[in-house]
């Protein structure tokens, strides 16, 4: 019977439809598998999180703020932030309390060529907030080098901003940048000189970081009181002498501490007992003006509104996993859409081709119907022809998808991501459903074409 209805022509349509089916099926299968793989990767790791720094808003111009102390977060405020929705943990920034100047020698040797000179600051955060802890991230009093982490985009700014504009500054690779000697001059009069190195470039923290124990040590040794730690001492209703430091107030006799009064230099009229200032100062030492928070997922509108209400300023650090996840999802979605388009066009081409095949074989097919063969028998005849072609295309597509996935697994292993090679049960289930849908659509088309023969 097959021989009786064999039609000539329509070969190229079948080839095009087969190619579309091969590509579409392969892409769809791959997209489904990669979606599951990405879920496995993101599922194994900590839930997607983002990091933010928070500080209190600064209002007014330079003159208004001159002499005012830092706006630090009190313990109550930190507790309140900790209770906010999605907050996973909070860490404080410690900053340097001494003037700091850096000489960076891009030539790789101190004194050779031009140095990039800059006044800078150091900050430190708890190590577990770092995106990674370099092996050389260690300092003790015997260390000759202070390790420094700077944001990756500082290096980009150097390479694509500063270096092209200044002939004496070469562009630097990561390796070259980590080899640059850096001279650290501490104090206004360079009381101390130390050597530093960039040990890593962070994509998470937007600050110049040094190990916390170094900063604590340096602050202790070279720290200067800032403007917020100078006070007017009041005596007999008038200011007595120049602004005094905390250390001076601490050295006063106990009775004077109890009865004497001081006022901050930023608001001289606000007189307070010396004892109160000294007590508050102990707490201030432990407080931070800038904090880093880790939150789960992306911040909600309510969370951002709450921060605004509290007059906190938020600086979003670099969203890593969130961004990776978004990119991965976009790629998967793109693959899925392309695969779907290929598959749909292949279904359409197959449908057209088989309508054409039935129509080209209409004379013998009609003769068979006239002989008493049922339209179901004829549909089965054409459909089995389609199934053979479809399976010849679909099975290689499945194999190709599995092969590409295993190839990607190998690549992923090279990046330290462990993935199971091969298609999952879900993917095979999806492939089966896809196969059934593809077959059903074409069965319907063929059945209709056969039924139309006798009309």
């Amino acid at each position: 019977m097959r021989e009786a209805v064999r039609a000539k022509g329509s070969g190229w349509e079948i080839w095009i439809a087969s190619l579309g089916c091969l590509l579409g099926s392969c892409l769809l299968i791959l997209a489904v598998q990669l979606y599951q793989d990405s879920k496995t990767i993101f599922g194994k790791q900590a839930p997607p999180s983002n990091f933010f720094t928070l500080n209190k808003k600064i209002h007014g111009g330079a003159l208004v703020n001159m002499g005012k102390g830092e706006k630090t977060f009190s313990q109550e405020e930190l507790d309140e932030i900790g209770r906010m929705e999605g907050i996973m943990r909070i860490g404080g920034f410690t900053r340097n309390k001494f003037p700091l100047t850096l000489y960076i020698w891009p030539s790789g040797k101190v004194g050779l060529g031009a140095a990039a000179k800059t006044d800078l600051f150091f900050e430190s955060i708890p190590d577990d907030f770092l995106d990674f802890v370099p092996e050389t991230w260690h300092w003790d009093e015997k260390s000759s080098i202070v390790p420094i982490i700077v944001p990756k985009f500082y290096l980009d700014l150097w390479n694509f901003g500063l270096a092209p504009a200044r002939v004496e500054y070469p562009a630097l690779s990561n390796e070259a940048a980590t080899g640059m000697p850096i001279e650290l001059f501490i104090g206004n009069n360079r009381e101390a000189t130390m050597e530093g190195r960039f040990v890593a470039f962070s994509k998470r923290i937007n600050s110049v970081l040094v190990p916390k124990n170094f900063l604590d040590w340096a602050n202790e040794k070279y720290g200067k009181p800032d403007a917020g730690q100078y006070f007017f001492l009041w005596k007999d209703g008038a200011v007595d002498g120049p602004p005094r430091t905390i250390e001076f107030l601490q050295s006063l006799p106990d009775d004077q501490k109890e009865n004497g009064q001081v006022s901050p230099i930023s608001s001289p009229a606000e007189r307070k007992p010396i004892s109160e200032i000294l007590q508050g100062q102990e707490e201030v030492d432990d407080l931070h003006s800038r904090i880093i928070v880790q939150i789960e997922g992306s911040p909600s509108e309510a969370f951002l509104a709450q921060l605004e209400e509290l007059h906190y300023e938020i600086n979003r650090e670099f969203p890593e996993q969130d961004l990776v996840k978004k990119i991965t999802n976009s790629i998967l979605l793109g693959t899925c859409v392309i695969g779907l388009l290929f598959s749909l066009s292949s279904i359409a081409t197959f449908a057209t081709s088989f309508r054409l095949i039935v129509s080209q074989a209409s004379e013998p097919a009609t003769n068979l119907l006239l002989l008493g063969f049922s339209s179901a028998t004829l549909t089965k005849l054409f459909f089995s022809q389609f199934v053979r072609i479809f399976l010849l295309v679909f099975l290689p597509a499945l194999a190709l998808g599995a092969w590409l996935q295993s190839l990607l697994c190998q690549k992923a292993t090279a990046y330290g991501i462990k993935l199971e090679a091969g298609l999952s049960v879900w993917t095979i289930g999806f492939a089966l459903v896809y196969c059934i849908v593809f077959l059903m659509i074409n069965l319907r088309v063929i059945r209709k074409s056969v039924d139309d023969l006798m009309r």
Partner: protein
Amino acid sequence: MRIELQSIRPHPIPEKLIPGSEIWATDLSIESGQKRLIAAQSGKGKSTLLHILYGLRKDFSGEALMDGYSVRKYTDAEWENIRRRKVSILFQDLKLFPQLNARENLSLIPEENPSAPSVDEMLTTVGMEDFGMQRVETLSFGQRQRIALLRALRKPFELLLLDEPFSHLDEENAIAASKLIEQMVELNKASLILSSLGDVPPISFDGKFSL
């Protein structure tokens, strides 16, 4: 199978051909087991009548009944069954499969008539024993006509419709084919309606209608 025609008027037949016809616009019946000859010149509607009885045309007024049931009312599935088991037809244009050989054409039927002789016997009866393995497209029209006739006889039937089955046969072959037809009709206790251009084949008909 009993056939009744009640005032049948096929739409493609010109009105002027209707008066004088013994079939169109009259009531008649063909009883089960009867053999009837429909004789007419070309264009009078012989094939049209056979196609109506085979469920291929519905463009007529009046009523055609098979075993008391209107041919209009059969569903597609019922027609499939009728064509498979109850009515067999030899079309004027034969409707063979040219790329298949004679034997393959004879085998390509949905159901075999249990009372039919073997393919070899049938081929021998009509003088086609040497052409069984030959592709139909290489046979003469007369040879093809005999193959198509054999195919119609190899299907089960209660009504056999033959549209000018001897138009390209010589007398000797027409006689041999006629004998086989009569034999198969008798064996199947079937009715026969045979159309011809006017000559009467050597078959003992129960009656003749002129169109």
